[in-house]
Each structure stands twice: as C-alpha cells, then as structure tokens.
C-alpha cells in the first residue's frame, strides 16, 4: 500500500477513524478515547459474531445438502460386513449428525474444551472459530450438549497475574502445544517483558513454546532479550549468528559476521566464528581478483579451466581445493596461496595433503603430486612420506585417471603387502604384482597371474623370465 503522504493525511482527516490520530496531546481526552475505543472494540467483537453468523449462511450456500451427500458417499462405500462398520453405516444413513461422532476440527475442540467450565461466555477465537464451528453447532442438540458450548471464553478476562498463570498451567496440563502458544501470545500481549520472562523461567515447557514461537514469527529482538534475561549467552550468540544466513550480499554478510565475533560464544566457537569471518573476507578478495583475471583472458589456467562457480560462501576445504587448483605456485604472501590458507586456518597436514593431491591430480600435474610426498632428510636423501597412507593416495590418483606408471609408483609405496597386491591387481599395475609375487617367492600365484595378462605382452615375458630364473628359491 503506497499512499503518498498527502493521501494519508487526507485519509486520516476524512475518515471516521479520526479518534486514532496520535497527535492528540490532551492526556485526559486521549485516555477517554482509549477506553471508548476499548469498549467499542468489545462491542465489535459481539457484533462481529453476529455478522459472522449472517455471513456464514450466505457463504455456505447449501452446506446441509452437500454434506449429507458426501456422507452418503462414505456410507455407500463402507460396505464392510463387520459389525462395527455396519453400525456406523446405519447411523450414517440416518442423517449427517452421525458424522459428529467423528472427531471435530481439532484445534477448535481443544481450545473450547479447555475453556469449558469457565463461567462467562465470550469469544476467544471469535470469527474463524465460529466459522469452523458451523457443523458442530448443528450437531450439538443431538449430542445433548448445551448450546453455545463452543462459545469460548475471551482471554481478555484473565487480568490478574495469578489468573494468567493458572491459565498457563492448565494449558500445560492439557499438553496441547497450540493452546499453550495461544495463551503465551496472550500473556506476551498483556504482561510486561520482565514479568513474562520471570514467570517463564520456571516454566520450561511454556518457555520452549515461546522461544519456538518467536523463532517462527521472526521476532528476533524479543528472542534476544529473552535469552539475555535468562542468561543463556550461548543461545543468544547463536541466534544472532543465525541471521547471517538471510544476508545474501557478501560484503554485508562479512560486516555482519564481524559483529558476531564479539558475541559470547564458547572459546571454541568463538574461534570458528572468527574463522568464518576471515574466510569470507579472503573469498571476497580472491573472487574479485580471479573474476578479473578470468575475464581478461590472459591467464592460462583460467582459460583452460574456466571456473564453474563463485568461491564465495564455500567451505574452507573447497576454498583450499580451489586455491590448489588455480593458485598452487603462488608465494605464501598472497591471500590466495594454499600455503597462506593452510597457515591462517591451521589446516592439519593430513587435510592439506588430501586436498592438494586431489586438486593437482585433477590437473594431471604429476610432478606436483610427486613433490607433495617427497621429503629430504638432513643428509639430503629423499624419501616418500604420506600422512594419509599411500593406499588412499592411490585411490585418489586412480579416481583422477592417473596413468599406470604413476599409479605403480605409489602402489609400490603401500606397506601392507596384501593391500598392495589388492590395489595393484585392481588397478592393473602388472609390474608391481609380478615383483611382489617374486619377492614372496610365490610361484603358484605368479603362474596364476600369468593367465591374466595378455598373451605375448611384455608382462608375460617378464613372468616367464622370472619363472625360469634359477636364482629364486620358490616356496611352492
């Protein structure tokens, strides 16, 4: 509704709602008007109900005819021979009143049953309740129920704190969450924040309902106040932090995350939040830079492997993969270099190697893969080491379709002989299999393997050479 200011002014001045204007400075007068309005609204309530009664009739057209029709349908279909159903069927045929033996629309029922026994009639859910009450009212005489039973009590009548709390307690005893929430909405409206919070602090069931309700309607402010009052600092912090999910703009999200750092998280979570902020900050820089590089079209890696998605809001490991893919050789000083990420976020060796391996293997940069596992000791000897176990390395390499020569090298580094043989057989690293059987002096297995390799291949020749060697003392 976008009325202009002029329109609005005119609206207020001309309308019969003039009493609602807020520029009234006369206190007494406004008080008078206030109570008058209250009284009027009460009358409206009553009047509303009557109006509704009328409207309902005009709205529903011919409900009686259609419902009985539908019930007959039901009855006609429930042609079971079993006694119980027969009974139901007979009843159904009489009139649609038997329909009433089925449960009524539920919330109406529970709310009304809850307020039954309160002496003063009134209207709680008023309009809509009356609407959905239509059928039940018609059934009421048949059920021998006092008419107007569904005229439920207005909550407005519960004014003393004691009454309100009793109301809440009864709601809790009924177990129906909908009723508990209804009462809480009323309490929220008619009690000051402090009193409401104080009373809920010792009523955990109701408290959880209020928290859920506030979450659902998105009353973040009251929720935060509540957590603060309850001294639930961690929930407060998380609740605030959750908001970032609704912020799409990366810069704004980053700024928001910055405000989260100082929230009362546990020490451990604080570090996670700090990391989240830093990560997004880095991603924004990398993204801007790389988008520029890519569109300039000067950088080979971006031309060969165009980016599929933006790196913004990706997890750290994905970011590391990205940086190993596009920025592997960069010096530690740049934000996008893998080493920089590793240091900033204290990424464990294992995770780093796993990710770098996957990225470099994807690019088929076997040289980098080799370097990843090569360490030099103080004497200058090189040695291959992998924090993740070479069997995993082999699997990752295979997944990225590494050539047999490369695979072979790493299969050979697997320490456990059985695992080694398994992998070598699985990935067809013939040399490894043959050499291993030779070292195991297992003539039978070698013979068996001979039948698996291609006829006339180099592998077959190699096996034959070994089998005919007189140097080996076969164990079988």
């Amino acid at each position, binding site marked *: 509704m976008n009325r202009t200011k002029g329109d609005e002014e005119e609206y207020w001045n001309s309308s019969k709602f003039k009493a609602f204007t807020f520029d009234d400075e006369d206190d007494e007068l406004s008080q008078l008007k206030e109570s008058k309005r209250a009284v009027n609204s009460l009358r409206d309530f009553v009047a509303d109900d009557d109006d509704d009664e009328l409207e309902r009739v005009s709205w529903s*057209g011919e*409900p009686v005819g*259609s419902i009985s029709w539908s019930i007959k349908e039901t009855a006609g*279909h429930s042609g079971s021979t079993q006694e*119980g159903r027969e009974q139901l069927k007979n009843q159904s045929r009489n009139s649609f009143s038997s329909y009433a033996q089925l449960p009524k629309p539920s919330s109406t029922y529970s709310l009304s049953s809850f307020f039954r026994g309160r002496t003063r009639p009134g209207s709680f859910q008023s309009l809509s309740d009356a*609407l959905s009450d239509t059928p039940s009212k018609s059934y009421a005489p048949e059920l021998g129920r006092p008419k107007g039973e569904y005229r439920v009590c207005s909550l407005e009548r519960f004014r003393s704190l004691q009454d309100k709390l009793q109301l809440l307690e009864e709601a809790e005893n009924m177990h129906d969450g909908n009723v508990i929430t209804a009462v809480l909405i009323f309490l929220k409206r008619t009690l000051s924040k402090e009193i409401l919070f104080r009373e809920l602090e010792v009523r955990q069931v109701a408290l959880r*309902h209020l928290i*859920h309700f506030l979450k659902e309607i998105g009353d973040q402010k009251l929720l935060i106040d509540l957590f603060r009052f309850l001294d639930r600092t961690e929930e407060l912090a998380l609740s605030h932090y959750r908001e970032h999910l609704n912020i799409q703009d990366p810069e704004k999200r980053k700024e928001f995350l910055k405000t989260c750092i100082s929230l009362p998280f546990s020490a451990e979570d604080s570090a996670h939040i700090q990391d989240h902020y830093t990560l997004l900050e880095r991603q924004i820089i990398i993204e801007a830079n790389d988008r520029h590089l890519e569109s300039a079209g000067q950088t080979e890696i971006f031309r060969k492997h165009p980016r599929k998605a933006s790196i913004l809001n990706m997890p*750290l490991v994905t970011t590391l993969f990205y940086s190993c893919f596009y920025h592997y050789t960069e010096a530690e000083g740049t934000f996008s270099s893998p080493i920089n990420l590793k240091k900033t976020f204290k990424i464990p060796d294992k995770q780093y190697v796993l990710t770098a391996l996957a990225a470099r293997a994807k690019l088929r940069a076997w040289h980098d893969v080799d370097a990843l596992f090569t360490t030099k000791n103080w004497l200058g000897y090189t040695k291959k080491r992998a924090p993740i176990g070479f069997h*995993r390395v082999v699997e990752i390499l295979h997944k990225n379709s590494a050539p047999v020569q490369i695979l072979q090298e790493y299969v050979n580094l697997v320490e456990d002989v059985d695992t080694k043989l398994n992998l070598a057989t699985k990935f067809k690293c013939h040399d490894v299999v043959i050499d291993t059987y030779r070292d195991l002096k297992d003539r039978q297995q070698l013979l068996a393997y001979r039948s698996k390799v291609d006829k006339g291949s180099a592998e077959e020749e190699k096996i034959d050479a070994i089998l005919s060697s007189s140097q080996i003392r076969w164990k079988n």
Partner: protein
Amino acid sequence: MAFPHRPDAPELPDFSMLKRLARDQLIYLLEQLPGKKDLFIEPDLMSPLDRIASVSILKQHEVDKLYKVENKPVLSTNEQLCFLVRPRIKNMRYIANLVNADKSAGRTRKYKVIFSPQKFYACEMVLEEEGIYGDVSCDEWAFSLLPLDVDLLSMELPEFFRDYFLEGDQRWINTVAQALHLLSTLYGPFPNSYGIGRCAKMSYELWRTLEEEEESETKSRRPEIGHIFLLDRDTDFVTALCSQVVYEGLVDDTFRIKCGSVDFGPEVTSSEKSLKVLLNADDKVFSEIRNEHFSNVFGFLSQKARNLQAQYDRRRGMDIKQMKNFVSQELKGLKQEHRLLSLHIGACESIMKKKTKQDFQELIKTEHALLEGFNIRESTSYIEEHIDRQVSPIESLRLMCLLSITENGLIPKDYRSLKTQYLQSYGPEHLLTFSNLRGAGLLTEQAPGDTLTAVESKVSKLVTDKAAGKITDAFSSLAKRSNFRAISKKLNLIPRVDGEYDLKVPRDMAYVFSGAYVPLSCRIIEQVLERRSWQGLEEVVRLLNCSECAFTDTTKEDRASSESLRLILVVFLGGCTFSEISALRFLGREKGYRFIFLTTAVTNSARLMEAMSEVKT
C-alpha cells in the same frame, strides 16, 4: 523366501475408509466456497492429496486451476481463491501478501484457507496482524491419517520430529490424539495400551480426555485392534541412524520413497524417462522382496525371472484355443509381472552400483563396530576421513551421531576435532547444526558441560521442590545419557552368532541389520507385548530415562475376540523406518501377531539429519 503369513494370522482392518473420509471432508470444505475457484496447494500436501483424490474430483467441485504455494507472483484471475496449506507462519505471510496486494489494487475476491490437519492459533494471529483476518475464511481439514499400505498409516508430518524433539513444541500432540480418536471411533476401542516416552504419554493422556468427553458409542463397539503401543522416536535413535539393508529400506535410503511411491530415474528404468512407481502390497513382486535382506533379493529376482520365462514358454506347445485363453487370461498378468520384475532388477543394479562406489562394505563394518562397541578409535578415524574427503555431509553427520549415542557422547578431544574438521569441510554455518544436534541429544560431548548444570541449579533455587522436579525433568531431556551399551546388554541387542548368520532363514529381528543388531525399538515392543506390561523391564526403562513416562493401561475386555488381541497398532512419534517395519512384520509372523503401523512420517537416517541441519542443501 518371502515369508507367507501364518494361516492363523488375523485379518487387517480395512483402512481405505480413511481415504474416503478424508476425501469427503475435503469435498465438503470445497463446497463451502460455492462457484468456480482456484486452488493453491502447499507442495508438501500434494503427494498425500494425490493418494486420496484426483484432479477430476477437484474439478467436479468447481476447482478451476491448481497452483502450487510458492514464492512466485500469482497469476490467478479467479474471483475466489482457496488455499490448502499446512499451518505454517510462512504460508500465512504468503497469503497475506497476496490479499494485501489485491486490496491495494482495489480488487475484491473471496479467500478461503483450509488448514490441514488443523489450524494453529499463531497462524490466525499472523492473519490478524497482517490485517486480513476476516477477509479470509478459515477451515480445517482434519486429514491426518493416510493409509500408505494395508498395514501402514502415515500422518505425513515430517516436521513433527523437529518441532517436538528439537524445539520442544507440543503443537502436534493434539493432532496425534485426534487421529487416535478417529481410529477408535472407526475400529472400536483399544483394550490394551502401552507406551514409552514423554510425548507418548502426553498424547495418550490427551486422547483419553477426548474419549471421555466425547461420549461416543466407541465404548459399546467391539474392539477390532487389541493393543496399541506408543513410542517416542528418542527412545531409540540408534536404529533410525543405521544404514538400511532390507530391500524397502534400501530403496528408501537410495531413492527416497515419498508418500508410498518412488521416482525411478533412467538408470533404473533403462529407458529415457523416469517412472513413478507405487510401492505397496499391490505390487506382487515388491511385496515378496520388500522385507528381505538385500543379499537375498538378487537370487529371488532371478528365480522369478526364470519362472516367468517358463510361463511364457508354455505357449509354444499350445493350440489356437489354448493360445486364445492364454492371451486373454494370463498374458496381461505376465506382462505386468515382467514390467515389475525388470523395474526391481533395475533398482537393484542401481543400488549395487551406488553402494560399491561409496564403499558400502567398509561403512557397514564401521557401523557394526560402533553398535558392538569395539575398535572405537578405528571408527573415529574412519569418520574423520569421511569428513576430510568431503563425502556427503549428511552421511558424516549420521556417523558422528551414531558414535555419540552408542558411546554416551564423544570424548571432548574427539568432539572438538571432528567438529572443527566438519565445519572446515562442509561450511562454518554448520555450527548451528551442531547446536541443534546437541539440543536433541543426538551428538553430545561426554561429561556434560557445566553450563547446563549451573543453569539448572540456579533455576532450582528459585522454585519449590515440586516445580524443581519438573524443571529437572525438562532439562534431563537435554542432558540425558543414552546408555546404549547398557541397554544393549540388558536386552541382548547384539546376537551372539556361532558361525555365519543365515540371512535367508532369519532367526530373529536382527536380520534387518545383517544379523548384527536387533532394533531397540522393536525389541522393547516385543518384550512388553510378551509381558503385557513393563514388569521386569524397570531397569531398561530407567536406562532409557523414561521412568516417568512408561505406561500400561489394560482393561478387561471380554468382547475382544482372540483374533483382535493379536492385532497391534504401533504408533511411532517422530517417525519410523522401513527396517523397523520389516523387523516387526517378521516378529508378527513368528508369533502369530499382525502389526499395524502408525507413524508421524516414514523416516530414515538422512531425513533425521536433514531435519537437524540448519543449512538447507
């Protein structure tokens, strides 16, 4: 193979009546808005609606166009709009936006909101706040029991799980009580009731209240179902977290069965298009393999294929008349069977392919180790590697929860390191997911933090003893220990196996987990039914943290036939899995019972984890 029912097994009541009832109620509601109208349907209600009504039925009742409730501009030009929705705040906002847009455009239409299965006061409050209360009329469609199969009723309320077990919101308890009330109205009173869990107890109490207030003829009816058993999902998270290996469960884990039907993609149908297939007792092939351990399914299907071939082959020696008979009478059935057979074979192949790729064998090995409680270090590093390699986030979370519940929480060092790695692999915003999991007791740290006890004691000081007890109770739902190991020992959940467990001839319910584990939920039900009470199970109940909320209520019911006393309605509050259904079907066959399942929704480990996840994927 494909266990037949015992000849003395009781007949199941006919639940199709529930469908007709729901349909008629909907028609009645639609007629409340006479004339042409457009119907806006909540996406989550579409599949259930499909199961009970067709478009032509809607059209018959002057529904003009159908729209999905989604965040898109509304194109409808109809003068009457009807919304069929779940009672959710966001739906109210959607409707309010639409109505208010109409208002400011000077357009008047009639609006009707039909809440299913019931309306909530909070929803009406939003309508009021948005200034459209009175402009829209509200109704309730109490459609809360959808028969998905001859023995399976679903409330189709997956949100029940999060609402109750995470948020502590009891809004659906009334819905459950109403559903039970409806069942007792239609199928007679339940002479024997048992239950475990806070929610079970509350639902039961509210239901009793309804029964007492509504002086219906229920009481004079002969009971059709002899027992009812209510069970909270949080008494047994472990079973729901395990990988499923019976066929139906595996299909659910792999393809997601939605409202009793599954979408088989091209990889299954071996054609270009996907196929929506109803999975229930009507599918003759499926009904024979649904409860089988997956390892048996292949053999069964190939045997079936050979039989089919043989039947086709019979036509070779036929004369014209026989052939005519064959074509008119048998061919159709054979073709149908052929079609189903090839579908399920396709599904099996696809499952095999997927499972081999994800190293299912190793995964199952780890799960079994967790269930039995050995090699915890090894399992922990297996999970760690899962996380590091960015294998599915849901899967990693599931394994962590399984580790936590079986071990009474993670040791702090592991908790911190797994959490850190998880956040690094799948995104820092999962911090919220971890907080949820802790709140629901699914993933906790050992030696519960001092924060909780501090709050607890502070609160306790403020109130009287009676109230303090209540509070401790409320808190204990947060802090309670799972005690899985002790319970497992007490109830013998890990069968001792000499030699190989023969999955072809199962000897106990453990077959649904390859013989490694008897589902806790099903074991509890078995034990209570045997005793007709909780007597002798006090220690188990205590370990389950349910001393206050395990109940029995048996009446002397002379009119109950012996047949009805072997029919048991099991109510799972918070969802049940197909594995549990299979296990209880097995138990039923062993004991001559038949189980009827009522669940708030069919669930599995992935659904549970997704419900806890704050980041929608």
